[in-house]
């Protein structure tokens, strides 16, 4: 059970999501990914993509216009 951290501060859409996508590929089921971003569109994008993939996620606002997104990798058996 590893925990990965991805700093996406000051990155424009869609770079944060694409970085997360790469990172998640290398991770194992059950690993957690923490993403830090100040780009609000990234959150909605990540939510839609993560939902589709079946991973678990949530996010909190850690400061004015700054968020942390938490993703738990889930691998379906199909």
């Amino acid at each position, binding site marked *: 059970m590893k925990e990965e951290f991805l700093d996406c*501060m*000051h*990155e*424009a859409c*869609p*770079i944060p999501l*694409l*970085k997360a996508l*790469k990172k998640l590929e290398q991770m194992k089921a059950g690993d957690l990914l923490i993403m830090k971003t*100040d*780009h*609000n569109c990234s*959150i*909605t994008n990540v939510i839609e993509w993560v939902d589709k993939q079946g991973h678990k996620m949530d996010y909190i*606002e850690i*400061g*004015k*216009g*700054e968020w942390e997104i938490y993703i738990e990798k889930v691998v379906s058996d199909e």
Partner: protein
Amino acid sequence: MNKLYEIVLKTPWPYWIAGIILSLLNIFLLITTGSPWRVTSGFLYWGMGFLEKLGYSDFTGSYIELYGGLTAGETFLLNTVSILNVAVIAGALLSVLISNEFKWKKIKNAKQVAFGITGGLLMGYGAIIAFGCNIGAFFSGIPSFSLHGWVFGGSMVVGGVIGSKILMRYMV
């Protein structure tokens, strides 16, 4: 009250609701002003106003001379499209302030700037020669039943495919 604030002014609205609101605003704009939502010509007016300030005012053969758009009494700075553009910026700022999320966002590196400038130039150039941007030609052109809207939309998607390739290769 707190919960209502969370739902209406904090959590993002669903895309489809926003889409319908934008359509309604667009038709309302067409009814009240006689012209649907446009963006790029406003940028051109600003640019030309700036050129005029620099002392350059030979606009023979320019887009504005041929296709105009300014009604009597309007200037490069004060006209329908420019006002609309300022209003869109102000509306976005209002929204961020209400949801308590405003922050000056810094530039990360020179690469971002280089891609930003290139992209901006391409958009400005493309939008002018095609008679409109994603708003004027696409979002207002297609509902106007003008075929150029459809062709612009299709070409924009082709450009999107090329742009995405560049993005995946050089920017991630």
